[in-house]
């Protein structure tokens, strides 16, 4: 492998590249899906290849191939140089990479049980048992479940002398009960986060108990009344807050968006570089960390796809925006001398771009339990799990639903309500954050398929938090008749 990497880098240099790197990757994906009492899909797929990135005359070039052979490596390296030359014709500012030491290292997800070594029969049996349990509950029309296991093995080598090998494992379980009756249909999903862990994640959960409770809650949701629109205090559980953080903070604080590099697709951001260090993003309770070191989180790695060692940094400190997510190429645009380590490519055939690391909300410093937070809330709603989500192209106006929503009346959790969603503006919403539960309630959630870029790439990242309260947020109802 090292020989092929060196051949690629030498070829690129000899053709005129001032910098080159190669990623040689192998991806394995195991996916088992069951509906009701049958298994619809048992799939085990793999994809392997390499991508070579070059800089020529200050411009990027990239080419990739699945044929890992000497001649092909040379051909692709030369092609990446040619592509860079074509790009250099419409160049405004030459690419400059922030300095980073060269590393020779190996990093792997610390797992206890490799999910690919667990017999398929065991996984199939688990899915069928869960579906069977959900279908026992009267009112459940459909039970759906999947288990998804990913392995990413990748080597990064650069003309600066790095040679880094990484082996990452991800486990993603998901189960949904669908209740149908009285002209309506509602779903409820099992609340277990995907993580960068092995099969131990699956074995740590009492799935049958969770399946039964989830199905019962789907039926409760079906029978519940429509939410009443208006202003409410919200208590958002970590399983829900995950996606709200992802959309309203994660994407908003990407430096490539702030610089206009995503303008044609996902958009730009209201968090422009002139606001760095001064923008009041939220209340003083808001502390947001960018982080590729967090154990078990979906965005954790030893190194990013620029070969930058994983690190941790503040994005928002006591409500003030203090740091963008950056790559080696981006750092200088905010006058920083080193990358924050946020480069990622979703395949050997993808060009690395700035992607979110794990982005999480720090737990409150003072002891505050969920019970205490609920007791202190007179008229509110508690959101758990992810529902509908949508946000504008500059990350101002958003709307989020939940997987399950309960009323809070006079300090107590009451009935479930359905078709609830909240609309707000990012800084108003985070400005209304007035309490975050303490450390013992902090949970590590994440997003398994975040799209960005042209051509589109998918990425995983963690978003942990403790339950948090937001005051007087605008609730809308998604109910009604045709």
């Amino acid at each position, binding site marked *: 492998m090292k020989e092929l990497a060196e051949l690629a880098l030498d070829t690129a240099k000899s053709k005129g590249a001032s910098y080159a790197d190669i990623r040689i990757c192998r991806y394995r994906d195991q996916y088992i899906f069951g509906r009701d009492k049958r298994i619809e899909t*048992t*799939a085990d797929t793999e994809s392997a290849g390499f991508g070579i990135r070059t800089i020529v005359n200050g411009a990027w070039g990239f080419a990739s191939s699945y044929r890992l052979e000497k001649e092909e490596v040379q051909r692709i390296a030369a092609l990446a140089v040619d592509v860079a030359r074509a790009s250099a014709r419409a160049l405004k500012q030459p690419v400059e990479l922030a300095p980073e030491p060269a590393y020779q290292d190996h990093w792997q997800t610390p797992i206890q049980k490799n999910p690919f070594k667990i017999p398929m029969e065991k996984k*199939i049996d688990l899915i069928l048992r869960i579906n069977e349990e959900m279908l026992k509950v009267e009112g459940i029309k459909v039970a759906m479940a999947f288990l998804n296991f990913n392995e990413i093995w990748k080597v990064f080598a650069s003309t600066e002398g790095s040679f880094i090998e990484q082996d990452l494992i991800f486990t993603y379980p998901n189960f949904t009960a669908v209740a149908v009756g009285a*002209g309506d249909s509602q779903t409820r999903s099992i609340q277990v986060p995907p993580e960068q862990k092995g099969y131990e994640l699956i074995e740590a959960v009492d799935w049958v108990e969770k399946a039964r409770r989830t199905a019962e809650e789907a039926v409760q949701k079906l029978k519940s009344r429509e939410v009443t629109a208006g202003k409410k205090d919200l208590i958002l559980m970590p399983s829900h807050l995950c996606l709200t953080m992802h959309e309203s903070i994660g994407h908003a604080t990407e430096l490539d968006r702030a610089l206009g590099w995503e303008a044609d697709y996902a958009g730009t951001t*209201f968090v422009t570089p002139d606001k760095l260090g001064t923008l009041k993003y939220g209340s003083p309770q808001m502390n947001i960390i960018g982080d590729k070191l967090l154990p078990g989180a979906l965005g954790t790695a030893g190194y990013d796809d620029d070969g930058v060692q994983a690190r941790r940094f503040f994005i928002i400190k006591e409500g003030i925006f203090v740091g963008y997510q950056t790559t080696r190429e981006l750092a200088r645009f905010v006058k920083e001398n080193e990358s924050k380590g946020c480069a990622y490519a979703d395949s050997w055939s993808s060009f690395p771009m700035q992607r979110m690391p794990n982005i999480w909300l720090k737990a409150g410093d003072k002891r505050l339990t969920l019970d205490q937070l609920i007791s202190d809330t007179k008229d509110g709603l508690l959101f758990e799990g992810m529902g509908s989500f949508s946000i504008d192209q*500059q990350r101002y106006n958003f709307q989020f639903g939940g997987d399950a929503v309960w009323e809070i009346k006079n300090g107590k959790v009451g009935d479930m309500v359905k*078709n609830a969603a909240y609309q707000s503006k990012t800084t108003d919403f985070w400005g209304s954050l007035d309490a975050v539960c303490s450390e013992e309630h902090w949970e590590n959630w994440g997003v398994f398929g975040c799209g960005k870029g042209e051509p589109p790439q998918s990425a995983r990242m963690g978003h942990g938090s403790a339950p948090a309260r937001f005051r007087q947020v605008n609730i809308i109802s998604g109910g009604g008749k045709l």
Partner: protein
Amino acid sequence: MILQEEEVRSLLERLIAESPGHEMSVGVSAGETGSTRFANNAITTNGIYNHLDVYAEVTKGKKRGIAAVDELTAEKMREAVDRAAALADVAPENPELMPALGPQSYPTVPALYFPRTAEFSPGQRAEAILGVVEKAKKQNLTAAGFFETGHSSSARLNSKGLYYFFRSTRSYYSNTLKTEGGSGWASAEEEDAGRIAIPELADRAVQKALGSKGARPLPAGKYTVILEPAAAADMVSYLLYNFTAREADEGRSFLSLGDGRNRLGEGLVSPKVTIFSDPASPELPAFPVGEDGLPARKTIWVEKGAVRNLIYTRFWADKMGREPVSFPSNVIMEGEEHTLEDLIKSTERGVLVTRFWYIRDLNPMILLLTGLTRDGVFWVENGRVSHPVNNFRFNESPVNVLRNIEMMSRPQRAVGGETGQSAVVPALKVKEFNFSSVSDAV
């Protein structure tokens, strides 16, 4: 890598022949795409991307396993077959698994493969983008965008003799031009890169960007809207992608009528509306292949407002005693003999929408969607575009949109701002469209 049909077919045949007695299906898809991205009036990334997927499905009775690899060698493909067979051994019986189909006859469709698109170079893309950047600079705008050209091939053979091989090319171009307080967008997708009129798409985005500068505030509420084809394409596509019979019969969709019944045959939207799919459409040709290799033919989904067809998988069709109907091969909606300008002229007070963005469903029982306007929203008064207004979030169902149509233009091929896929649709003038809040985004 361009697959040669003879080579691929003989490889697939050999694999099938090596496993007599197995019910199996083997296939290959491969392609190469070149794409160039630009922003702030300069190229940012430029690359050539290859893909190859070789897959094997092995079926044993009612049990099936699927495996995929990405090497086109007999040895690696055999490995995929072995892995799929091992998965089929451990899979439980799936009572819904349908038997494999035999040889099929596919309708002839217009050309999907254009050599000049397959051979399009990074230099040609850069050349086209330089022209856009020059236009942007002249107007003191910044241009961002994406230009992609590529080719792909797809082949499949099963042990009952079903076989197909198709090649296609695709080119996609999108540009967003921005100025302080204004933004414009235009996009196109074609099988033949030579049909993408990049200077015109740049001009359209320039006009939108300059025209949307200085937006005046307009409160949320229900308005008559004129949806340009890119916005209409998203609404019609979301409707059609949810036209699934099983969900409707199971009581889980806006097409459910309860007690296992659905709205097939019933009036759903305005009698003005007819929507169909046709892979042989000259405006929007498509692969003529549906579920499990069934031929895809012209399917009328909505005729004069009534539901004429729903998507029936092979299993569900069998269970319900009907013919299977595959997922829409494309989206085509009939229009009226008007222009977009006619729609504007006929409007006393309304909102002109260029495109939508970030559409997600909120309630499947009424197909309630939420999303936002983007890249040009304009107030129309007394038959003319008066001034730009702020962006909005909408909470609305495409069913209501198609119920409330007042007037339509002639249909044209347009790329949906959210789906990124082409559809042939008219611009729509629609009453009482629900904008639920205002967005500050530009």
